[in-house]
């Protein structure tokens, strides 16, 4: 596996300009000769499909939803970063670049991050022109807020629904191209395999979720915009259908998978209420601006919070981190909450959360101010828990939320399989070992609107290949494999449901490869996963047939892939014998108890090559160099 990052030489400030000039262009009249497949219609997929359609390529876009607008980007609450410096508070492209590299704990590629910061400006312009109703000041100009511990206000937002509004912008641009006939959409189709001919990506195999029909689609290039894999843990903030299948199929066909162990756990989610819990709901991180986090000092203290006097409360973040207090980064806040719960200080009926208390803020600012700032979040909390957070402290607990790892891509967003591109959360490119708040939307749209539509031309313009259509034997082979797997899943008729088995895998991952990881625990997980996988294939019961809408079958196929993928997730976490960002190995802590990097041995991207189910994958490394942002240790004391 060759890992050529294709990072342009010369000063980082000019790299993207220089690269755009160096890339070959596709003649406008030739663009319609090229077909491009885009899988996924979130921010990255919809924006890429719309832009490429507009440029003149023939685009086919696929989603397993009934409409492109359902993609999980829709659920992003907080906002989108851009280095506009509208507040005049010292922001710049360079500062956004610097913050992102540092926030990623020095495990991302500098040139990619710099380009992201540059493009952030264009994204806001584009979204506003589309009619995205960002928050405004009374003077009519765009409003900003500070987010996720940033020292400047660079986050643009549309109430608590920024992801929704940005996605609707992309969705509408996409629907416009569908209307114009440049993009053809296939809804309720799930990609179940990638077709590679002579080492080059040439198409996909899908299943029609309504009729069960397995279909082949050929193209000159394939773009995966299929999101993250946090649902490997079963309970996460991801939508129920979010899955690893498309990326994992690509991995099995030769694409390298980068940094799977970088999984972000969000500190402020509502804790599970019972065994029936199907997913976890995130409460915006902004709540930590005014809420104080605490647990009872005495383990097992079951008194209602109001009856616990101040002297018997432990405001542990304020105690441990006097200067940042409740605003420490996500990974620290998450880890400390888990430690409190694990040591018996958890609150609520199930002792599985910590308090986020607004009592003092309400006393200081008044209930109206708090309602104005967080009213919609408080309402949401009350709807879910039945408790009134104006009177009783919220209960929160960390939950898997975002995955920085993904398919390895070069500077042009091309994977190790020529002709296969990955964009948005599906690639590994920009966030290193930890993503900053309000940066996911930025990256998805940068990739989709501004990077990929340029770089894909450089691939297509150089393409000299024999025509391949779906009649090629590789398509028939892939279709057969997909059909066989479906038949196999339906024929087991065991005694356990898909969810039960997914729960089993998720619980193992959460305990052994979640917030805190140890070599011992990871080795146990690597031994246990094949056993769970075997149980899955012997004991699962998938009711119904393959010729109709069958949601159990869809779920079973996705869980089957998580069962295989989980192994490289744990192997990566074991191989990365350091702590960095969201990856916390208990063996590697600073004297202050924080993540301790080992730059000498681990300043690289870990890229895994699939060798077969149950076989040990091969690790390749892309070295990372830091020319512009000096390596340093984070400190939030």
């Amino acid at each position, binding site marked *: 596996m060759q890992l050529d990052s294709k990072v342009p030489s010369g000063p980082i400030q000019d790299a993207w300009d220089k690269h755009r000039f160096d890339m070959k262009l596709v003649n406008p009249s030739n663009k319609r000769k090229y077909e491009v497949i885009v899988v996924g219609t979130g921010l990255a997929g919809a*924006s890429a499909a719309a*832009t490429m359609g*507009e440029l003149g390529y023939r685009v086919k876009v696929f989603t397993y*939803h*009934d409409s*492109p*607008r*359902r993609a*999980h980007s*829709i*659920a992003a609450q907080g906002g989108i970063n851009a280095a506009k410096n*509208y507040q005049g508070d010292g922001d710049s492209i360079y500062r956004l670049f610097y913050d992102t590299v540092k926030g990623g704990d020095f495990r991302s590629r500098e040139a990619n991050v710099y380009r992201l910061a540059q493009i952030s400006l*264009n994204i806001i*312009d*584009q*979204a*506003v*022109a*589309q*009619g995205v*109703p960002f928050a*405004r*000041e*009374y*003077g009519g100009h*765009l409003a900003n807020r500070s987010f996720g511990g940033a020292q400047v206000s660079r986050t643009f937002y*549309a109430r608590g*629904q920024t*992801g*929704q*509004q940005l996605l*609707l912008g992309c969705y*509408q*641009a996409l*629907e416009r191209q569908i*209307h114009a006939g440049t993009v053809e959409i296939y809804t309720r189709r799930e990609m179940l395999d990638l077709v590679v001919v002579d080492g080059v990506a040439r198409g996909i195999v899908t299943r029609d979720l309504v009729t069960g029909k397995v279909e082949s689609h050929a193209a000159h290039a394939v773009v995966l915009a299929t999101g993250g894999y946090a649902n490997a843990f079963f309970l996460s903030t991801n*939508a*129920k259908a979010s899955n690893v299948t498309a990326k994992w199929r690509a991995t099995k066909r030769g694409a390298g998978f980068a940094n799977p162990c970088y999984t972000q756990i969000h500190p402020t989610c509502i804790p599970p*209420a*019972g065994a*029936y*819990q*199907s997913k976890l709901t*995130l409460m915006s991180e902004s709540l930590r601006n005014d809420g104080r986090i605490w647990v009872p000092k005495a383990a097992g203290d079951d008194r209602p919070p109001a009856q616990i006097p101040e002297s018997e409360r432990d405001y542990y973040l304020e105690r441990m981190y006097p200067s940042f207090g409740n605003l420490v980064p996500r990974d620290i806040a998450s880890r400390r909450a888990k430690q409190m719960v694990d040591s018996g200080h958890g609150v609520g009926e199930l002792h599985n959360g910590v308090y986020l208390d607004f009592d003092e803020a309400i006393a200081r600012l008044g209930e109206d101010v708090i309602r104005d700032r967080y009213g919609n979040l408080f309402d*949401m909390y009350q*709807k*879910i*828990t*039945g408790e009134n957070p104006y009177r009783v402290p919220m209960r929160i607990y960390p939950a898997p939320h975002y995955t920085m790892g993904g398919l390895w891509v070069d500077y042009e967003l091309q994977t190790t399989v020529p002709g296969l591109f990955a964009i948005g959360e599906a690639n590994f490119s920009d966030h290193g070992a930890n993503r900053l708040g309000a940066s996911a939307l930025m990256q998805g749209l940068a990739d989709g*609107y*501004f990077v990929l*539509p340029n770089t894909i031309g450089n691939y297509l313009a150089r393409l000299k290949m024999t025509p391949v259509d779906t009649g090629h034997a590789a398509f028939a082979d892939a279709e057969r494999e997909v059909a066989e797997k479906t038949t196999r899943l339906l024929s087991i008729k065991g005694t356990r*449901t898909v*969810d039960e088995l997914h729960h089993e895998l998720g619980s193992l991952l959460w305990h052994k490869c979640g917030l805190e990881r140890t070599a011992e625990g990871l080795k146990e997980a690597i031994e246990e996963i094949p056993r769970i996988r075997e149980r899955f294939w012997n004991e699962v*019961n998938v*009711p*119904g047939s393959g010729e109709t*809408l069958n*949601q*159990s079958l869809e779920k079973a196929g996705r869980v089957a892939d998580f069962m295989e993928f989980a192994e490289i997730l744990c192997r990566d976490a074991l191989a990365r014998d350091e702590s960095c960002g969201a990856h916390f190995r208990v063996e590697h802590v600073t004297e202050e108890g924080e993540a301790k990097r080992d730059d000498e041995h681990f300043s690289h991207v870990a890229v895994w090559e699939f060798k077969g189910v149950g076989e040990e994958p091969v690790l390749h490394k892309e070295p990372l160099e830091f020319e512009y942002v000096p390596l340093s240790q984070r400190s939030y004391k």
Partner: protein
Amino acid sequence: MNLTLHVWRQPGPQASGRFETYRVEGVSEHASFLEMLDLLNENLTREGKEPVAFEHDCREGICGSCGMMVNGIPHGPDTLVATCQLHMRKFNDGDEIWVEPWRATPFPIIRDLVVDRSAFDRIIQAGGYVSVRTGSAPEANATPIPKRVADEAMDAAACIGCAACVAACPNASAMLFTAAKISHLGILPQGQPERYGRVLEMIAQHDLEGFGTCTNHGACQEACPKGISVDVIARLNRDLLVGTWKEAGV
């Protein structure tokens, strides 16, 4: 709590459907309505039966996938929530609950509670956008927009496309959905160049899909999980009138 459910079961688009009665026991009041259906489906699967098909994804009220008639009310007895945010504490032990799919001719049933809402996408395709080429946008702050205007646009833009408005309407009109988009874009300066063409195209598509006309019942506003007001329909009607005159050269 223990419940009796009457759920609409229909194996496919062409098959005939009927209510099936199920007993669900030991439901926590903290569970969501969809988690209660998960419990039913786990039980059905263990009994070797086929689970109830229903659409859902984000389970936090923003993707718009879920939606069903619960005791004859779109998204059930709570207000300002999608079905995924309806919690069982809104019900009592021993309740009988009737669960049906959205009923409207333009939404053919695919299976059980799953309907085909692609008509909504086609209404947007007809004109629910601002035509702006990627990269050709002016500087974002070049056009100041009063906060009041931006807020009003955001109120309309909050629509999640769940189609509860159609399900609630005695005419199966999709006017609230269509008007929400027309208002969102028609209020903002960016939407002005295409404003009147947009309304004509979108309404033509709305009618072509077989949705009924609006007769001001207001049931859509009551059912909307995002609280979108029927004011948007008044705005649509005004733009439709002006657009029709302009087209006729009046």
